[in-house]
């Protein structure tokens, strides 16, 4: 689901770990061909292709980063190419807690467009969204058209995180996501909303099926064939 740390109804769904897992929706923005998909693929899959097709072909990808006491799971959304015709659906921004606006350091126009995306986010997204600016293709420093300092001061002005990245060399790719993970608030959002009343139809189908039949008692699991006793 696209919101943070929502504990599901009943006993199902909580993933065990030393600390808690917080889930955040992260959206990518930026002009076509700045390398948004490459950046994500590098982060999620750890690989890079020079001629990556323009969209990933998936609704979103996920990746987890471990912080000291907690784990942060990113649900990374791809624009699916809708930005090419200025037709990004508002649902894209719904519930997004983080955003990365990508520009190409060898293309100053893409940097201008990035600023427009910042304004768009301020208009459409929730006011507490953590925005970070990524100057991608840092490996092509010889073709640089956007100075580091220019972007850095703009980012400071707007209160954005900023890093120059390279999906090709993997420079700063993990770092930018980690920086975002650190900045995101890790609070239990249960509050007054009574999350038990929210239904996500995927997990609901599982909850309906998961009815135990017999009485308690261990299955005598030994290390050799251990498996969770209940799916």
């Amino acid at each position, binding site marked *: *689901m*696209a919101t943070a740390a929502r504990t599901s*109804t009943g006993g199902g769904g909580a993933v065990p*770990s030393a600390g808690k897992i917080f889930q955040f929706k992260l959206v990518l923005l930026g002009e*076509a061909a700045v390398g948004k998909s490459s950046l994500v693929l590098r982060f*999620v*899959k*750890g*690989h890079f*292709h020079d001629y990556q097709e323009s*969209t990933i*072909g*998936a*609704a*979103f*990808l*996920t*990746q*987890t980063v471990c912080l000291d006491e907690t784990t942060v799971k990113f649900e*990374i959304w*791809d624009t*699916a*190419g*809708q930005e*090419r*015709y*200025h*037709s990004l*659906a*508002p*649902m*894209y921004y*719904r519930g997004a807690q983080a955003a990365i606006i990508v520009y190409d350091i060898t293309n100053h126009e893409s940097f201008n467009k990035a600023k427009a995306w910042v304004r768009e986010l301020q208009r459409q997204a929730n006011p507490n969204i953590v925005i970070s600016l990524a100057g991608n293709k840092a490996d092509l420093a010889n073709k640089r058209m956007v100075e580091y300092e220019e972007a850095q001061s703009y980012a400071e002005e707007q209160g954005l995180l900023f890093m120059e990245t390279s999906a090709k060399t993997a420079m700063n790719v993990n770092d930018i996501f980690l920086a975002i993970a650190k900045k995101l608030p890790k609070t239990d959002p249960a509050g007054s*909303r*009574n999350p*038990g*009343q*929210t*239904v*996500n*139809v*995927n997990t*609901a*189908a599982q*909850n*309906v099926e998961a009815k135990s039949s017999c009485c308690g008692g261990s299955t005598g699991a030994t290390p050799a064939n251990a498996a969770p006793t209940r799916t």
Partner: protein
Amino acid sequence: MEELPKEFETVVLGTGLPESIVAAAASRLDKSILQLDQNTFYGRDWAGFRLKELREYLSTLIQNKFDAVGRAVDENLLKDGEVAVPIRPSHCPITNFEEKIYVKDDVSETDIAPQSRQERYRRSRHFSGSSVASSGTSSTQGDESRTPTTPEAPPVPPRKQFSFDDVLAESKKFSLDLAPKLFWSNDKFVDLLTTSNVSRYASFRLVNSVATTVEGRITSVPFSQSAIFQYEGLSPSDKRKLVKFMTMCMDPGKMQEQMQAASQMKLGAYLDKLQLPNTLRKSLVNAVAMCTDQTSVPEALKRIRRFLQACGRYGANTSPFLFPVFGSGEYPQYFARVSAIFGGIQCLSRTVDHAVVSTSSNKVTAVISNHERIACENLVLPTEYVPDEWKSSNHPSKARILSRAILITDHSIFPRVKNDNGEKQACDSGFMRIAREDGDELGVLLVEASHTADICPADYRVVYLWMNAKSSARADLEPYVERLLEPFQHDRDGMPKVLWACYHNYERWTWAETTEQPSAAGDAGRSAAAGKIPANVRVVSGPSGSIDLEDVLEESKAVFEKMYPGLPFLPRIPGPDEIVLDTSDSPSLDQSGNKESENIENV
């Protein structure tokens, strides 16, 4: 902005719900799809808006001219044997927009120092009738005629003071639907959401109250055995009767028997035999069967069964309904996105001026938009866009007009509900169906939701009302508004208060065959007339007055079937562990994004 490709398998005019579903299904088959929408937003008549945007949209619509005369066509764009047919919406389906602001500042600036909304106390208890506003201007003419609180009046308990400006300041947090809908918990539409993976972004709130009115009073409808068990004011033997009746409805064999035995009866007579107390009987007819005493028994039993089967799906005591978080205006976007993920293109703020038709084959070969020719093999368009020359005596069918209202209120109109701990708390979202005196089968439908569904800020509620129109929306629905909510003249504490109401009529045209009597021209006339529309053009309708989206699903599937006979309709999209990305040098990857690491936790 990139240039659009010049050729697509299908061009879809509009990003409304049926057309987006068709676009998604077609994209899933790897067809190249282009959706063009003349609006700056997704959804057409299904769209959701923020408060300011909704008011703007509805008020400016009236002023928009819908010119019958299209733009001149650039002859260069036509090939031999082709003609250009102007495609423009012939009329605006939304009419009679009216607005009423009930609350405004009654504290003048000089009286007190500026205080936050929460701290202001209500100064006067009497709002005069002349303080009615229209179309956004809040008048202050009522000030002089207002009487100050008299010394004898009992002290007014401090209550949150709202002014419309406060409401407008939070415009961004509203998500108001032009065509509000609920989902049944076991909806086929919900199944579609799961298979198309839209469910990964869509979530719902349980509607925890179902009600009707009996003799003017709001009555909760017990929809589960548990609710019946706890229902006060019903004798054990009456509870038994009701439970038996409901159990019978849930048993297909028994229900068949009853349906056959009472096939000629009307629901009213049938229920007379059951001898249920009046309140319960009305609840059953109005809110569970959602029909009238005149409905045939087989039909009524089917509906009751449908209602009951959807109950209890998410817990012993859950109603049959789900309210979509962020409202139903999101759904066209969800499906448009599915289309985009599979390669479809959406382009807003783009009109199509002409369809290009080949006279020899009577098929659309292209559309012209912004002086560009975009070739296509199929065209999908909403009914209002169909040019006159493609219409016939039976297509489109006669329009049905709905009256709709959207209200912003401060408290729920539904009675408090018991939560899991047995404590009573305010209703989260509710559904109500009120029977109409004239026996209209749709009745008056009402849906209420709150900030828990992310459609408004905390402290407010949104109420939607709609019915088949008799006259203007306001004339039709305002009486109900005033019955259910605190009429602005009085100040009864504890009654939910309406802050703002807007009304509009919506005219719905469908292309599909109607169930009404065939015209005198007969079948021959009809088939001849139907031949006018090019064979590769499909028409979709606007939102209906139904509570759910089943009719949209039916229509989308029917259109899809005509376009791609025999091909699968939005087959299940592969899950994370079944997908391999098209990359040659990578070993098995999974889309859930988990690296093959030593850390066994991520498994």
